[in-house]
């Protein structure tokens, strides 16, 4: 088949959280920008939460695991070598279609873990470089919360008040006050008041299936409409197979397949990768050439390495009171950062955050929820009644340290619909993580008991929680130890950028999306400032 050729200015690959923010920012400065996205637009109805059998859909076509969901746009991610399984979405909006929208920020120390605590790697930028971009992102996404958290640097007043604590959340907040553990109402990209066409959250629960009201932001309803109105171009059903380079080592564009199976080549002045911490290294590792035999821009051999996922131990508390745990947005109401910073008296480095989750319907509860076990057989219904509506789960987000053997590689023995090799995730828990997990489980258990839980059940990590994908093309000043520089530009290929979570040099212990969006916005400004486009 003869490939069709065309030419654009800036070419972004991936229309998820990072790609959308970057495209919007460039478009707002009048730069011509085109984005290729392998998936399609999603409608609000696609959340499926209005169906009677909605919970069944959650296990199937709305599963966050692409290997279970197997939509047309999903590519295989081989995960038998990873104890944590991938959770992503492929379509306009990327994984924000399924995310829970909990949006805490990195703290200043997260950017300097090597200098301060002697582990991992420092970023070549600081919190202060990103602060302004966090604000821009909060405004566009729409952020509920309460400013004035003394646990973090100052920020502006939030778009709407915080989400309600709920019955379990209020009990836990009381317990935190008794324990004198620092907490604060969480920031989240969930509106608690109407804003334009987006309605206030009505507490329906399963945000991870998509939000029918538009209360929960996803970039298809925030950044993308604005970016398109500013003249950006978005092509869907466009699966990028590899990035092309010329003999001088510059990227010249990408090779891709459209939804009709037609092969295409789009030439560009700048190529920007935003396919997430698995998708980006997959395409770059597949972009081998004589000049780049280990994958594009990979002279450092860092591409795909240092995969950080945040191991998330979970502890569920069971209360006598019916705390109606099926109501309220599913993943957050309060942010608990008592154990966030490094503490030399502990047997591990760095720290963790705790968040309180809810929103589980009958089926998920019957299947054991996050961490309790419900017997089958004679005792089943009695146990179900004891748990359903009566539980709250504390999820402990542990900082992950970069390790070269935790990585993404490609495996040509399995391919996607366009013949692109599958990604393989290899990931094991490190000693430091294991110790941190132990500490986190102990703290979460103590908290739930203080809040009045009659019994608690713990799991050392949630195996399905592979949604924070970081580190696989990391940022650094030393080209031998990192893939991109402080402007997100490849050390080896000057007109190739990576702007998603792949560039994280450290993982922090918070959900990564506002940080990766701030990084993407900043990268757009720097590209413009350097007059590259």
């Amino acid at each position, binding site marked *: 088949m003869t490939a069709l050729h065309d030419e654009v200015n800036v070419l972004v690959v991936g229309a998820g959280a990072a790609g959308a923010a970057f495209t919007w920012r460039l478009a707002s400065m009048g730069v011509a920008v085109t984005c290729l996205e392998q998936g399609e637009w999603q409608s609000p109805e696609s959340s499926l939460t209005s169906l*009677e059998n909605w919970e069944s859909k959650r296990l199937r076509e709305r599963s966050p695991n692409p290997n279970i969901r197997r939509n047309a746009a999903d590519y295989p991610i081989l995960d038998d070598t990873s104890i944590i399984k991938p959770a992503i979405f492929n379509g306009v909006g990327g994984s924000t279609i399924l995310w829970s929208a909990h949006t805490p920020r990195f703290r200043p120390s997260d950017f300097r873990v090597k200098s301060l605590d002697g582990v991992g790697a420092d970023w070549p930028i600081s919190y202060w470089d990103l602060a302004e971009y966090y604000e821009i992102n909060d405004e566009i996404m729409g952020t509920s919360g309460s400013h004035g958290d003394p646990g973090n*640097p100052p920020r502006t007043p939030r778009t709407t008040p915080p989400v309600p604590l709920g019955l379990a959340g209020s009990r836990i907040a009381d317990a935190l006050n008794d324990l004198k553990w620092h907490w604060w109402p969480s920031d989240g990209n969930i509106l608690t008041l109407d804003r334009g066409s987006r309605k206030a959250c009505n507490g329906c629960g399963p945000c991870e299936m998509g939000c029918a009201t538009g209360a929960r932001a996803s970039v298809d309803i925030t950044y993308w409409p604005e970016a398109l109105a500013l003249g950006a171009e978005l092509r869907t059903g466009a699966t990028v197979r590899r990035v092309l380079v010329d003999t001088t080592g510059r990227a010249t564009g990408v090779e891709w397949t459209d939804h009709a199976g037609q092969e295409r080549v789009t030439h560009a002045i700048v190529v920007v990768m935003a396919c997430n911490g698995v998708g980006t290294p997959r395409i770059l590792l597949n972009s081998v050439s004589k000049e780049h035999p280990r994958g594009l821009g990979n002279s450092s051999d860092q591409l795909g390495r240092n995969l950080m996922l945040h191991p998330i131990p979970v502890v569920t508390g069971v209360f006598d009171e019916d705390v109606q745990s099926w109501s309220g947005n599913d993943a957050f109401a309060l942010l608990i950062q008592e154990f966030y910073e490094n503490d030399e008296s502990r047997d591990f480095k760095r720290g963790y955050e705790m968040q309180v989750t809810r929103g589980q319907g009958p089926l998920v509860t019957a299947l054991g929820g996050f961490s309790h076990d419900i017997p089958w*057989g004679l005792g089943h219904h009695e146990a179900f009644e004891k748990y359903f509506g009566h539980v709250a789960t504390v999820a402990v987000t542990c900082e992950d340290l970069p390790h070269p053997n935790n990585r993404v590689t490609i495996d040509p023995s399995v391919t996607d619909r366009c013949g692109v090799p599958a990604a393989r995730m290899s990931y094991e828990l490190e000693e430091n993580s294991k110790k941190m997990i132990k500490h986190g489980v102990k703290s979460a258990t103590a908290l739930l008991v203080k809040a009045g839980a009659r019994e608690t059940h713990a799991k050392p990590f949630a195996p399905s929680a592979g949604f924070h994908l970081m580190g696989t093309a990391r940022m650094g000043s030393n080209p031998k130890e990192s893939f991109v520089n402080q402007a997100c530009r490849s050390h080896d290929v000057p007109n190739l950028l990576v702007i998603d979570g792949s560039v994280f040099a450290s993982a922090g212990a918070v959900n990564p999306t506002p940080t990766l969006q701030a990084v993407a916005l900043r990268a757009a400004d720097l590209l413009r400032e350097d007059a590259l486009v």
Partner: protein
Amino acid sequence: MNTLLDRFTDDLLPGNDHWPAATEIEVGAAMQHLASTDSEQKSLFYRLLDFLENHKERPALAEILEAKDSELFGFAKVLAFEAYYIHPKVREVVASRSMYANRSPQPAGFPVVTRRVIPWNEDEILWRSDGTERSNEVLIEQKKDPKKTWTVEEIRQWRR
């Protein structure tokens, strides 16, 4: 429907005064329907039927499957629970035995019953300096007035 599958599903989900047994709401047939949408699930489902056929003389089918093939058991349990808990009759029982409403989450949503709790620490600044001058400056200013309302313009000044 397959009587062996009925026996198996009633082992998993027996009824009582409030809850229907799996066979009362034909969980076996619903499992077959759910599995038919996907070739991998379909073949696992047929493996399940084969297993049950090969062990039909034994009394406790679910217990044997769990002991002999935990993976297949896991698949069958999830499928049976899925078929059971999405059934209208079971949803009615769930609603009558809890505070849950018998409807899908949308379009009406669920009211979130809540209470206001104020964090105990509203003033003591807890974040750690990254060692930069900027960190120290901001810390000093935030300590002076923890409740100050900051503007984007002020925050923009922090950039290097």
